């Protein structure tokens, strides 16, 4: 279970999150919707441990453990995974080399033995096939020269391989055409599991047609201002965020 309690944070002295509280139960798929600039991406980065943010108050607990006290790699080993809105290109690092290093680093952190090369290859091949990722793509440097769709599929491939407990998807639908969106959403849906939670951050309702959320939260001005079922997303699609942005005080 993820518990974000009264979280305030700023970047370069500029406050972004303002007393945000959020609970995502184990096995739950929670959507966070909100207008641009509401702090959605900031929340995802702070959960993953990006160094540029200053947390001024509050806490983030994963199954009762304080995430803010952990380095990004330690959070990853505990099962936190952020699917980036803009996956980073790493020239000179072969995708397979990276995948193996990441997988084994997490296993080592948990006191498990490294995966053998045949086991590793089998795992990658299986996950790659279901995401329509060609072998050729795995031989390229990580994310370099990948199309938008390829980058997002690569994020989901990593997610499938690393088998995290908490998946945070930051605007995974951005830059995807409808076919690519379907492949990515199918990949995410295949990972839904009673032991795994998802935080699906999106600006548009479109993604939620493919990844059905259990809960929808609305974020505005650095906090959660409304929560409800999937019907809330449809309402937002009809009426936009205007009501929430203006009626901030009501939250």
């Amino acid at each position: 279970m993820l518990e974000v309690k009264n979280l305030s944070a700023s970047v370069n002295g500029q406050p972004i999150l303002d007393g945000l509280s959020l609970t995502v139960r184990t096995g739950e798929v929670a959507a966070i919707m909100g207008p641009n600039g509401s702090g959605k991406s900031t929340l995802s980065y702070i959960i993953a441990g990006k160094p540029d943010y200053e947390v001024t108050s509050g806490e983030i607990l994963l199954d009762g453990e304080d995430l803010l006290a952990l380095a990004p790699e330690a959070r990853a080993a505990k099962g936190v995974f952020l699917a980036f809105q803009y996956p980073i290109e790493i020239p000179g690092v072969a995708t397979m080399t990276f995948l193996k290093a990441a997988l084994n680093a997490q296993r080592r952190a948990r006191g498990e033995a490294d995966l053998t090369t045949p086991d590793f290859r089998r795992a990658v091949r299986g996950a790659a096939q279901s995401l329509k990722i060609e072998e050729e793509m795995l031989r390229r440097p990580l994310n370099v020269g990948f199309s938008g769709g390829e980058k997002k599929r690569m994020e989901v491939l990593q997610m499938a391989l690393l088998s995290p407990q908490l998946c945070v998807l930051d605007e995974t639908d951005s830059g995807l055409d409808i076919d690519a969106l379907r492949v990515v959403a199918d990949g995410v849906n295949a990972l839904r599991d009673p032991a795994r939670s998802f935080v699906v951050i999106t600006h548009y309702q479109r993604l939620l047609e493919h990844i059905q959320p259990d809960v929808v939260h609305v974020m505005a001005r650095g906090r959660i201002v409304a929560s409800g079922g999937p019907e809330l997303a449809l309402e937002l699609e009809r009426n936009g965020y205007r009501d929430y942005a203006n009626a901030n005080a009501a939250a």
Partner: protein
Amino acid sequence: MTAQRAPASNAAELVLAEQFRALPREVASPARAAAFRRFEEAGLPNRRVEAWHYTDLRAALAAPAATLGAPDAAAIAEARKRLAVLERLAATRLVLLDGYFIAALSDPPPAGVALAPTPPLAPPASDPVLALNVALAQGGLAATFATQTAAKAIEIVHLVSAEGAGAIYSRVALTLEANAQASVVERFVGAGAATQRQVSTWFDLAPGAQATHVALIEDAPALHVESQVVRLAERAAFDGFGLVAGGALARRQIFATLEGVRGRVGFSGLGLVDGLRQADTTLEVVHAAPHGQSREFFRHIVADEGTGVFQGKVIVKPGAQKTDGGMKSQAILLSPHATMDAKPELEIFADDVVCGHGATVGALDAQQLFYLRSRGLPEAEAEAMLLEAFAAEAIGRVADPALAEALLSATRVWLAARGQGRRM
């Protein structure tokens, strides 16, 4: 290039003059004497000499060590043991011990290649340090690759004997006759903190000849000065790479001249600098004939209080039309006390040319680092992965996969040692 005369001879120059006068009568020659006069006129270069602006050799060589003599039988026997465990990087191994060619430690040359133990004296050099090398080097090696010789791979191991406290001067002269091909690796092994090493390698490429050269500096001398002189006739091609992973002060200086039409040179390299070390690559490429092409690509990783230097000057002479030149220097600094001095320069005296240069200096990319850490890679491992990738792109200029792999593994050794040093 005008080198300003330094102030009156200092103590170091007097020691060097004494060493020159002490040369055995049988090696003395007018050419040597001319070279030493050239050195004396300019003196040891300091920062006022443009080509030595970032490396003060006058300060670094304040106390020239006594020159090492030719190794004796015991030293050769000891060297044989060390060579036995040194992995080969080419089919044919030639060995210079303390700067002297030792046939007993070397393989016979491949067909089409003729060796001579003593190099012929070189023409007078403009650089004072190169002139000093010409004046003082007694040992060395000359190899001639006969016309039409197909690619021959040779490694020249510059080994320093166990007692290697002292100065080493040596010269290697490699001549490629028309259309000959050669692949040469020079490895510098065994030097310690009491070694002052000054070597020169001279490449002479006849029309259509093709040479690749890799220099690998892995040992840790107090001083490593390596001058490379490359002359290319028409349609000749030369690709050189240098890995500097050791040495308190390492200076590689390259002087290349494209004398014939349609010559091509590619110089690249990687400097791995930590502690208080300094690695300086200074390069001058002269396009003296039309339709020449030159490419330079150098990368440095500088940690701690290290200093990396890249100076590249491309000169396009009048009449060297259709010259195509491109030069790039990139560096990653890993500490606020690390320094990179990069000075790419173009001097163009022809009007129909395409030349460009660029230099970047930066830290490791924070976004990339976070991305890798967010996937579970510990910070040191993520850093090493990015640095290895940065290095690998420079090493990618080396076409031979086995050689590239050897360079990459030397890079990994350096990265691992740096990681351990930091954790201590």
